[in-house]
């Protein structure tokens, strides 16, 4: 929405001074009770995937947000973690690996770490554009390799396994989806705490220093290559855990799990949520998974919507959703929120109108190209006849009016916002 000021800076404002333990405790509670409210099979599946993607996006952000490294190939580490985890499941089934299923994600993590060490040592010799290009190259290389060695990667069909293997522990077989959800929730919680703790260690903080100013970091005694390398390897470890969980969840791993699209998804999720704040990628992962799982069920145009949403974030809130939240919390704490409720309400209403018109046109266009002209369907319960020009005129009018109102509301909101920000800035000095 409104993140005009302070773009691209890490926001250090801590609005809610409640204890950390309370925050983490509530988070654990939310993870535990979510299935009671969303008990449908579809919801459980989606929440499981959200948990997995939260770990992956946070692992990704150890590079992007914390160390300043833009990777285009992080699915290599989630994906290879997945492959080793799925093999581990098969070895458990064959009786050659005595390991409880609950620890299979650790197998993924260890192999994520191994490949992070292996590839990372070379990749992290450089930062910046060179780094990004090498990650892209290694991503393509691993993807190609996954199709070249079918005995390990299973070719096009991938490798499948059965997660109900080994002895049940306290009656837990991991057959039902709800048991898998809780396994994922537990790993998500543990991995999140570990990654958060890492941000408050010497390595974690020096990684921030390397992100901000690699040259100066060398002049305070740090070999920036080693800092990047260690962060990369540790990120590979957590990515591998996400991959291991994904293997358990889907019971199949195929080449696309190491592919560029998966890597791009992590970048998108981290960026949408906000790379400058620890919990940013968590929000991003939830939204991204929602698009991927739920929206893709509802509409064929989901990728278009995701792309536009991503563009809107990049252009209007480059700090991601987390920064928008934090900046609004700061305004709220300073007692200025009463000046923003009205502009926000106006903006939201206009936004809904414009979005309605836009979605109608997009959906009608998709429908038209599907049916080869003509046909009728409904958007938001409103029946639409594609053959009638009136349908298009109305949708276009709604979009135009909504867009116009939105523009006006935005200008009004921005004026208030900038005024409040300048007052806050004055107070700070």
């Amino acid at each position, binding site marked *: 929405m409104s993140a005009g000021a302070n773009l691209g*800076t*890490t926001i*250090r404002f801590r609005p809610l001074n409640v204890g950390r333990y309370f925050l983490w405790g509530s988070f654990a509670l939310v993870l535990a009770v979510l299935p009671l409210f969303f008990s449908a099979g579809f919801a459980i599946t989606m929440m499981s995937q959200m948990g997995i993607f939260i770990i992956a996006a946070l692992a990704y952000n150890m590079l992007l947000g914390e160390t300043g490294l833009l990777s285009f190939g992080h699915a290599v580490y989630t994906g290879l973690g997945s492959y080793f985890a799925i093999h581990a499941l098969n070895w458990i089934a064959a009786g050659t690996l005595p390991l409880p299923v609950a620890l299979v994600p650790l197998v993924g993590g260890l192999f994520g770490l191994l490949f992070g060490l292996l590839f990372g040592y070379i990749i992290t010799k450089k930062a910046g554009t060179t780094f990004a290009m090498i990650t892209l190259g290694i991503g393509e290389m691993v993807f190609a390799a996954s199709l070249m060695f079918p005995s390990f990667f299973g070719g096009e069909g991938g490798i499948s396994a059965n997660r109900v293997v080994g002895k049940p522990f306290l009656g837990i077989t991991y057959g039902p989806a709800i048991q898998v959800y809780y396994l994922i929730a537990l790993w998500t919680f543990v991995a999140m705490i570990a990654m958060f*703790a*890492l941000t*408050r*260690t*010497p*390595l*974690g*903080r*020096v990684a*921030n*220093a390397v*992100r*901000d*100013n690699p*040259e*100066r*970091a*060398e*002049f*305070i*005694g*740090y*070999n920036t290559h*080693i*800092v990047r390398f*260690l962060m990369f390897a*540790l990120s590979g470890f957590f990515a591998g855990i996400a991959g291991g969980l994904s293997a358990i969840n889907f019971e199949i791993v195929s080449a696309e799990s190491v592919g560029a699209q998966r890597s791009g998804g992590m970048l998108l999720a981290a960026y949408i949520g906000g790379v400058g704040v620890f919990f940013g990628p968590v929000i991003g992962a939830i939204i991204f998974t929602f698009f991927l799982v739920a929206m893709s069920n509802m509409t064929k145009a989901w990728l278009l919507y995701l792309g536009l949403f991503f563009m809107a974030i990049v252009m209007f809130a480059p700090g991601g959703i987390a920064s928008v939240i934090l900046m609004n919390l700061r305004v709220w704490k300073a007692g200025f929120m009463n000046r923003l409720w009205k502009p926000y309400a106006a903006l939201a209403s206009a936004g809904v109108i414009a979005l309605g018109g836009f979605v109608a046109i997009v959906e009608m266009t998709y429908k038209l190209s599907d049916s080869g002209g003509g046909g009728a369907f409904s958007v938001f319960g409103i029946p639409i006849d594609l053959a009638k020009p009136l349908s298009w005129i109305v949708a276009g009018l709604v979009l135009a009016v909504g867009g116009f109102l939105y523009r006006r509301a935005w200008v009004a909101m921005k004026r208030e916002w900038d005024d409040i920000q300048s007052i806050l800035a004055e107070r700070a000095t």
Partner: protein
Amino acid sequence: MTAAPGAAASIELRGVYKSFGKTQIIRGVNLAIAKGERHAIIGPNGAGKSTLFNLISGRFPVSSGNVLLNGADITGLKPYQINRRGLSRSFQITNIFHRLSVFENLRCSVLWSLGYKYSFWKALNGLADANERAAEVMEGIGLSRRRDTLAGLLSYAEQRALEIGITIAGGAEVILLDEPTAGMNRSETAHAVELIKKVTAGKTLVMVEHDMGVVFGLADRISVLVYGEVIATDAPAAIRSNAAVQEAYLGTTANNH
């Protein structure tokens, strides 16, 4: 030119040359700076003062010649290796960690010297010695009031102070300051000089500086660098009366006043 008998010089340059492409920037510099000395390098713009610093601190490799730190050859070492041997430098253009707070800037700067290196199994907030040292430096450079402010949001003078803080935080015995008072007004400069005196007490200090008041107030000895060559190294009074120096550098400055 020679260090005190019996002790190795803190910094010694032996026949140091540096070229960028065909252009020779440093042309055979020999210089020895004794332990505990406050040494200033002055010279007209483009004389190669900053380049000399970059060669000593490992930012650029020398084209030929040797750099010695406490008698040990450090030629060709990386900046972090040189820093670990007890040499720390500041930059002419402020070079800080702009998205970290003042305190985090300083805490990062003390970590290596206290032996925490790359550890990711220790909580920062539990490192009493690092936190105390960072707080002490912060107090020393007068930025305690700005503890949690992002370094990028500090005023220029505050950033310059932080620049010096980062440089000295690790406890290096040899400090190189590149134009520490550049861009400051008179009172800020006076403040900075006091700060430099305080935080570099008992250490070897080498500084590049344009402000002659600062130079003559701080330095034990001065080297004059002109077109990549040291034309004189002596005590301030002798430098002031050196005819070659006056012609090359000070004369023009004096005429401007």
